[in-house]
């Protein structure tokens, strides 16, 4: 976790420095705001990872001498085949295209999206693939 934290914090701090220099030198608003946001997008995840790094013991993937046996056990629950990402994708695309072709497309698109939300929740609760 510590290296991951450092990656984010280094990048974020660098953006912050650039922002300060840019603001003092140019006084231009849009760039300063964008650099501020960029710095935030580096520092926020960095602080999150730092928060965990302080509280977690080193994981097997953080220790150079860890053996594979230490990493044994479930890594996580991975879903099987499911149609719902496809349905959600079509719904999102139709909703997006409603910006071009009219609101009626959004109605169909949102129906797809809502049905996905319901079904994926149920799918997860059943614990895996449909």
């Amino acid at each position, binding site marked *: 976790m510590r290296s991951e934290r450092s990656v984010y914090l280094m*990048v974020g701090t660098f953006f912050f420095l650039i922002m300060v220099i840019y603001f003092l030198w140019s006084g231009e608003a849009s760039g300063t705001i964008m650099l501020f946001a960029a710095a935030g997008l580096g520092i926020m995840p960095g602080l999150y990872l730092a928060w965990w790094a302080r509280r977690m013991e080193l994981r097997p993937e953080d220790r*150079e001498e860890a053996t*594979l046996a230490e*990493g044994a056990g479930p890594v996580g629950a991975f879903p099987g085949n499911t149609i719902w990402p496809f349905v959600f994708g079509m719904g*999102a695309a139709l909703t*997006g295209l409603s910006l071009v072709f009219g609101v009626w497309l959004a109605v169909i698109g949102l129906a797809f999206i809502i049905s996905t939300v319901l079904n994926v929740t149920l799918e997860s609760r059943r614990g*895996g693939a449909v």
Partner: protein
Amino acid sequence: MTVIEEEIGHPGGEVHHEEQPRGFLLWLTSTDHKIIGKNYMYTALVFFIIAGAMAMLIRTQLFAPNNHFVSQQTYNELFTIHGSMMLYLFAGPFAFGGFANYILPLQIGAPDMAFPRLNALSYWLYLTGGISMLLGFFTASGAAAFGWVSYAPLSSATNSPGAGPDLWIVSIMLVGFSGIFTAVNLVTTTVYLRAPGMTMFRLPIFVWNMLVTAILILIAFPVLTAALIMLYADRHLGTHIYSVAGGGMPVLWQNLFWFFGHPEVYILALPFFGIVTEVIPVFSRKPVFGYKGLVFATLAIAGLSTGVWAHHMFTTGTVLLPFFSALSLLIAVPTGIKIFTWIGTMWGGQIEYKAPMLFAIGFIAIFVMGGITGVLLASPPIDFATHDTYFVVAHFHQVLLGTTVFAGFAGFFYWYPKFTGRMYREGLAKIQFWLAFIGAAVTFIPQYLLGLKGMPRRIAVYLPVDHYTTLNRISTIGAYMMGLAFALWIVNVWVSWRRPIPASGNPWDGHTLEWATSSPPTHHNFDRLPPVRSARPVWDMNHPEFADYKTSHSGQAADRERQQ
């Protein structure tokens, strides 16, 4: 060597060992990163072929002065969609949707991406986004015709009416969200799903580059999406964010766009730098030279790339020239480090010139020239003289074609056995390389000269008195050579599909974990993993006498041992 392989627990319990659906249904429903990765890759390559065909039409139009091969309106649509497809639909998705999706979990020893369903969703958003962009050609007013940068106020409702530009906006938003979701997936996977012992400084460079790319995507794409929403609002909801008449600022679009656009260039380039850094060590039979330097160079590129957006705006007269010039020039340093690192990796090796290695070296050769002309353009006075001319066109085509196409095909051929379990035809691939490499030189070097003679970019016609004709003809012939090269690639894939030569799990004597499993890998990737004791676990396993963990990090201690 006592234990080479150990049992690892099967992730996810027993739920997933049911029958896989086949064919079309598998394509629709799979959440396996390998299938999604292949979907991404083949879709991106189809878009590449379509956009490449558009490039052929563009070059045909420019073959002669005052040519009427296509109308000016069609020409404008063609170069707009050529650029948009190559940048948004091919280069990025090919790398972080295709290669990263397939290879990154394998290289870190993970069973899948962290969010498989989100991963599938990104693919569908990408596919529908791509189709939306092409739909523009079938609308009454044609596709978008304002360049891939879509400068305000040319992209306003008055200057570019019709559904084509709206489709372009929606398309890029969908593709943008797909990129953001993929980036979230890549970061989470890299942080949480590494194999035991796979510390951050043992990650393959490809994974490092993808991690940094993902960080950049998460910073850059939201800016683009916000800018596009404001553009849509200007077009249809009566806002005046980019129009002078309502008190807005057109140049704000340029600021927002390039704040996305310049990191985007590195989002496109870094994954391919990663690919090259995988290919060169394997075919030189050496580890990466200067691993840590390379990692910090990548981070430095990421940091600097966000501070250089206005070097695309030197001639607007609204930007702080010295600041952006200095940062842009500085990017040359980490980029140079990378190039010397690759040469350093080859230095003292046993280089085998298989197709992936040829493409990787072709990439370096083309990229060095594109990179050096980029340094010239980072100087505002030189940019004043060459901005928006073919000099710039040649520069970014060398950079982007060098990375996405040459490094991309290096990766394609390198991992093709892993993707399919079959070998490609070496001879055909080598002919493809030479055609493409010579073709690229013949296409783009004349374009530098055209730019220095003052030929502006994006012009559909030029006059005979301009004396651009000969150079344009040479350039067009080069483009046809490249077209032929990629036709050969299709033949190669077809032949290897119809008359397969089976590939082993590790045909190249590879270094990283993807070569520790079968080709193609099993459902959750690994039955067994080798122990991870360095950045090259598979090399360590296959060459225990030269294993990295035995030598000190500089490799010199081992040298001394050997001499004693």
